[in-house]
C-alpha cells in the first residue's frame, strides 16, 4: 500500500501558480492520480476549468506533455496520440519496451455531454489510455450552466430555482454505468476525500491493457455555493450519504469500495450547498423526498449488480 509520505516525494506533474478557485477540488484529484504512474505521461485536456486555469497565456502549470483539444474530442485526440506511438514502436523508431502512459481528461460538460461520442468511440476501439472525468456537476468554467451531470433539484443558471421550477427537474446521467456497458477492462468511480482509493484506482487504470475510465467527484465551492474550506468534508458526505458511491467495474465485475457504517440522509449533503437552498422551503419538500428515493434506488441497484456479476 502506498504511503502518503512516499507519493509526496514524487515530482508534481501539475505545479503551483495555476488559477483555480480557492478550495477547488480539481488539484486534489490530479495531485494523487498523476502520481499513480511514474512512466512518461501525455495528457490531452478538453476545454474546461482545468484547461483554462492551468494554461493562462503565456504560462503553463503542466510539468509534463500536455495537449489542448476542443471541447468535444479529448478522447479522440488521445486515441490519435496513442495510435501514433504504437506505430512508432512498430516501425522501430521507439524501443518496443518503452512504457508511455496516456491520459485524456475533461470535466463533466466535456465528458457527459459534449465529449460523449468521442469518448464512446475511443473506448469501443480499445485504445490503451485512461480517461479521467472530474465531475463538478455543472459547466463551472462558464458560470454554472446545467449539464447532464447536474443533480436533480440543483439550481443552475440554466435551471434556476424559482416559482416555476425547483431547480433541475431531470435526473443525473449515470455515466459510469454507460462506460461499464462498453465492456472495457476497467471503470471506476472515485472521490478525492479518499486518496488511497483514488490512487489505487488510478494505478489500476494506468496499468490495465486497454481503455480505462475514472469518474471522480469534484466539489466546486463556486458553483455548489459552500464555504471553500469544506471541500473535503463535503466530498466525504457524498460517500456517507451514498450520493456518490465508490465502486469499480473490473473486467465486468462490480465491486463496492466503500460502505458507510451508517447511511446518512441526503439532507446532510444538500444542506451545506447554496445550490440546493431552495429545497428547504416547505413547498419543495417533495424534491428532497424524491432525491432520497433516487439515491436509495441507485444504491440498491449497485448491490444487485455486485451480486449479479459475482
Amino acid at each position: 500500500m502506498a504511503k502518503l509520505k512516499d507519493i509526496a516525494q514524487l515530482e508534481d506533474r501539475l505545479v503551483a501558480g495555476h488559477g483555480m478557485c480557492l478550495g477547488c477540488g480539481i488539484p486534489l484529484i490530479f495531485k494523487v492520480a498523476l502520481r499513480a504512474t511514474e512512466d512518461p505521461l501525455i495528457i490531452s485536456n478538453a476545454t474546461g476549468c482545468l484547461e483554462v486555469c492551468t494554461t493562462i497565456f503565456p504560462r503553463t502549470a503542466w510539468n509534463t506533455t500536455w495537449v489542448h483539444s476542443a471541447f468535444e474530442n479529448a478522447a479522440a485526440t488521445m486515441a490519435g496520440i496513442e495510435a501514433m506511438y504504437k506505430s512508432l514502436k512498430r516501425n522501430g523508431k521507439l524501443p518496443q519496451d518503452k512504457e508511455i502512459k496516456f491520459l485524456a481528461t475533461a470535466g463533466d460538460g466535456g465528458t457527459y455531454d459534449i465529449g460523449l461520442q468521442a469518448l464512446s468511440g475511443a473506448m469501443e476501439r480499445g485504445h490503451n489510455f485512461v480517461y479521467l472525468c472530474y465531475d463538478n456537476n455543472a459547466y463551472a468554467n462558464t458560470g454554472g450552466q446545467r449539464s447532464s451531470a447536474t443533480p436533480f433539484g440543483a439550481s443552475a443558471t440554466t435551471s434556476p430555482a424559482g416559482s416555476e421550477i425547483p431547480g433541475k427537474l431531470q435526473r443525473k446521467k449515470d455515466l459510469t454505468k454507460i462506460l461499464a456497458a462498453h465492456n472495457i477492462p476497467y471503470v471506476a468511480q472515485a472521490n478525492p476525500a479518499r486518496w488511497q482509493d483514488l490512487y489505487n484506482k488510478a494505478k489500476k487504470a494506468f496499468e490495465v491493457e486497454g481503455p480505462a475510465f475514472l469518474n471522480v467527484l469534484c466539489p466546486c465551492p463556486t458553483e455548489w455555493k459552500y464555504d471553500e474550506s469544506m471541500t473535503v468534508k463535503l466530498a466525504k458526505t457524498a460517500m456517507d450519504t451514498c450520493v456518490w458511491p465508490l465502486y469499480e467495474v473490473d473486467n465486468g465485475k462490480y465491486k463496492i469500495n466503500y460502505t458507510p457504517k451508517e447511511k446518512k440522509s441526503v439532507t446532510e449533503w444538500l444542506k451545506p450547498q447554496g445550490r440546493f437552498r431552495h429545497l428547504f422551503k416547505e413547498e419543495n419538500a417533495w424534491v428532497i423526498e424524491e432525491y432520497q428515493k433516487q439515491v436509495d434506488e441507485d444504491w440498491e441497484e449497485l448491490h444487485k449488480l455486485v451480486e449479479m456479476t459475482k
Partner: protein
Amino acid sequence: MKKETWKELTIGTINPNAGNSVQNHTGTWRSGTKPEFIEEHCIHCFFCWLYCPHFAVVIDGDKVKGFNYDYCTGCGLCAEECPTKEKSIIMVKENVQLAGGGEE
C-alpha cells in the same frame, strides 16, 4: 516576466517552458486570513499537503515545514482537515494589501 507576443511564440502555439506558471503568485489573491503552522502539534500526516489546492504546503522529506505564502490563497482547507487534537494549523487574520497582479 516579459510577455511574449504572437511574433515570438513558436509556431503551433507550443509552450516549451513546462511548469512556468510558478511565476504566477496566486498568494496575491489571498484576502483576510492565512494559515499559521504550529510545529510542536504537528504529527506530519501530510493531509495539509494532500488537500492544498494551490501547492502551498512546504515539505522536506517526511516532515511538513510550513507554507509558501507566494501561492497560498487562504482557503482554509488545510486547517479544516488538520487532524491533530490541538490544531497544528490555524487560520489567522492578516492585513491585506491590495494585490497588484501576479507579476514578479
